[in-house]
């Protein structure tokens, strides 16, 4: 899960460009227009009062301090978007002063707190100015003027106005962000909206209420109240940075442990990782929800850990397997599931690991499930597993080409594999290049038979035992 899926307002553009990379003309034009618009709203004379210097200075200072405290986290974000914490300040600016001050505070705060390429700095400041301006305009239109707050008054309707302002801030900022990521970095708008903006909408609404609280307490306590009000947000940000670090550590640890298992006596290093990648590719085509994709990734990485329970001499066996030895191999999905039982989050992943050797025609193992009664995760992993196995080198044959492997999958559609999953993989491969296992891997045991190779498996399940390798392979 990405940190940007957490309920914190997102509004910074951070990725790429730091090394002075190429910015397309449309990108320059776009950023130019945004900056110009920000300048216009800051400088146009439209309000009957002059700028309140005290409010602008203290809120700008507060924005800079709060952002500086948290800059360390920014580098970890993906998708070129980072969280920022000044939202309540920007909303409060609209409440205790007016739209123009809000825009000014947004621009100054954004400019001083973010360092990086000039184009990003300019864009981030301008975007923050425009969205703060829009939010403050909503508040002003709703009739909650700064005069009322500065006099210590409060109307319940202000709650609705602030929620609306938070939503508008989110919309304006989100739209500007989608634009810049599209025009400069070429990221598809749908992807930004789905994975970076939508999940943070509750954060925008919820934390904009903190702006209301700052405004309510402003007359009696001034900037002190603002600092206190920000604490929950600062703490949330801290928790999220901890979460992000822990998540990364977790993934790295699982990967290292799985690699250790693989190098022991399995045929290829990186197989589990590639099965996870192919499974995720299939899941994306199927349009799975993000949490399920994550669970599937873990299931892919861990699908073969149970093989460690199979005695090495059976895995390394060069001649035909006796029914007993074959039974020992068949038990590996069960062993894997047993071992992982203690992990709470993996519910659906268990099913995927347990049943990844089932076949659509019911001749698979360990349970002989058929067709749709095989869990979806297992049907995905089965295809990914077979695909990677076929495109990797085995001691009894060379690696097949991607086309040959796809042809084999197509041939086994309906009998061994779920046609939906095969088609999904084929369509994913068209869009995204596949990196197969390196051709020359570390020495493997001579004649080790790959249990995931569908051509071998087909025979084995029908006859109860694997034929001697030399009789069938290499072809």
């Amino acid at each position: 899960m990405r940190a940007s899926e957490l309920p914190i307002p997102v509004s910074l553009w951070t990725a790429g460009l730091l090394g002075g990379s190429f910015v397309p003309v449309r990108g320059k034009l776009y950023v130019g227009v945004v900056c110009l618009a920000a300048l216009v709203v800051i400088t146009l004379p439209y309000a009957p009062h002059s700028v309140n210097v005290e409010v602008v200075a203290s809120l700008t200072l507060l924005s800079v301090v709060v952002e500086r405290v948290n800059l360390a986290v920014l580098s970890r974000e993906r998708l070129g978007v980072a969280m920022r914490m000044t939202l309540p300040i920007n909303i409060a600016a609209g409440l205790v002063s007016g739209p123009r001050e809000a825009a000014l505070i947004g621009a100054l705060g954004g400019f001083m707190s973010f360092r990086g390429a000039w184009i990003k700095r300019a864009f981030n400041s301008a975007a923050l100015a425009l969205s703060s301006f829009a939010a403050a305009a909503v508040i002003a239109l709703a009739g909650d003027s700064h005069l009322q707050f500065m006099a210590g008054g409060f109307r319940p309707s202000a709650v609705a106005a602030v929620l609306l302002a938070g939503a508008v801030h989110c919309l304006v900022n989100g739209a500007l962000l989608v634009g810049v990521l599209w025009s400069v970095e070429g990221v598809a708008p749908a992807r930004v909206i789905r994975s970076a903006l939508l999940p943070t909408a509750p954060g925008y609404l919820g934390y904009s209420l903190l702006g209301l609280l700052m405004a309510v307490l402003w007359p009696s306590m001034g900037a002190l109240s603002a600092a206190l009000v920000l604490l929950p947000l600062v703490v949330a940000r801290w928790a999220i940075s901890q979460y992000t670090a822990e998540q990364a550590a977790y993934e790295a640890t699982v990967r290292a442990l799985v690699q250790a298992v693989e190098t022991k006596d399995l045929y290829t290093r990186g197989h589990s990782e590639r099965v996870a990648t192919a499974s995720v590719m299939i899941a994306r085509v199927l349009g799975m929800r993000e949490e399920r994709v994550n669970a599937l990734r873990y299931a892919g990485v861990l699908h073969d850990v149970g093989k460690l329970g199979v005695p090495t001499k059976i895995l390394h066996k060069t001649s035909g397997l006796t029914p007993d030895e074959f039974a020992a191999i068949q038990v590996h999905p069960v062993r894997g599931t047993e071992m992982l039982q203690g992990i709470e989050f993996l519910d659906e992943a268990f099913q995927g690991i347990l049943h990844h050797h089932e076949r659509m025609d019911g001749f698979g193992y360990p349970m002989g499930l058929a067709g749709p009664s095989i869990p979806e995760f297992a049907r995905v992993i089965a295809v990914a597993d077979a695909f990677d196995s076929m495109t990797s080198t085995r001691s009894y044959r060379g690696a097949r080409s991607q086309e040959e492997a796809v042809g084999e999958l197509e041939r086994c559609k309906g009998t061994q594999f779920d046609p939906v999953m095969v088609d999904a993989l084929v369509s994913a491969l068209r869009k995204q290049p596949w990196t197969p296992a390196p051709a020359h891997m570390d020495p493997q045991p001579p004649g080790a038979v790959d249990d995931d190779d569908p051509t071998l498996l087909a025979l084995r399940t029908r006859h109860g035992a694997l034929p001697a390798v030399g009789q069938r392979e290499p072809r």
Partner: protein
Amino acid sequence: MTMALPTRARSTEMRGTALVASAAVLLVLWSVVLTAGEHVHQPVIATAFLVLVALGEVVRLQLPGDREAAPVGAAGILAYALLARFGTQPTTYPATQVIALAAVAVLLGAVPHVLAGRTPRVDEPARRILLAALAAYAFRPAWNGGQSWLAHQPTWVLALVMLGVAVLVLLADAVLAAFLRADRDRAPYLISLRDELRAVLALGSAVAATGVLIALAAQVMAFWALPVFCVPLLLTQMSFRRYSVIRATYLQTIRSLSRVTELGGYTETGHAQRVSELSLAVGRELGMREDELLELEYAALMHDLGQLSLTEPVPGGATIMVDRGEQRRIAELGAAVIREAGVLDRVALVVARQADPYRRPHETTDETLPLASRIIKVVNAFEDLVPEGAEYSRGLDAIERLRLGMAYDYDPRVVETLARIVRRSGR
């Protein structure tokens, strides 16, 4: 008698909890009697806060290190204790009413959890009630229904007084939690206090600030202050929940994956788990910090990982039976795997040095050897010598054998701590 080696000292586990719980119960009884004997002051305000605190209790969350927190509930009850005026009307209720309200809210908040079949904890709610009492007795008499000097001060003075009380409560929270933990785990008190301060500071400061701000904002916003403040705090709580879930998942995954050596027939079933539990018990008594204990746990769970690289399993997985060079090679191979992760370098160091003696001939103690490595060396040897479910006397024999190795291999401090734990379990 068979041995069941304890991860925690069960006989005394309840003593501290019982003390805190009975203090809370006595306070609550006293408060309820007083509140009922008089009448409920300002019942509408009380009802609003009761709803808030009870809801906060329902959505409480688990934090890393077997902790429970109810941030919204805690902020709500703190705000109720610190409430000076509601709108323009001064609040008049006494401290006992705050305590009674906290108790009722804790009970109401436990109902959905009990209905869902979960056993509610006693220690943490009791702690929250005691803290509510502290805040109430610190502020209510000083406010005295708006009759005291405090009523005529400007808002910022009032705010500073409230902040002072909130900080006091925050510190008392850590002190009380440390008392409970030190008692339960037989850990040194000051170490526990340090751990608790680190653990509660982040979320606790958000809770304290929110409590103070609700009380202040209620002077302007009346009822609106409650939901408007709690929504952001709920969002913050969600971030914490994610963090705490990933921490738990991490630990569960390492526990599960540490069993690969069992599955491969390299070690006996449950060996890694037993070594880690016993190592933790030793580490706690030796005063290791919480973060060090987590590293110790990870290292103990993965200490045999290097055996995966052996062609033939060591008989029974007992590394004590193989020669020293081989032991060291297994340790180094395991550390290499862990180092591969890139994030557990200190754990890798502990695993790498688990076979090293704590001192060599003609030298003093090896100060560079991590305490965690020494613990794992001793406990691992003990586990290899004492099969699961063995007689108590075998445990004592094993300790004697470890004592023979105290000149070089086994750190005497660790062996004696282990001996204490074994003796305790056998009684």
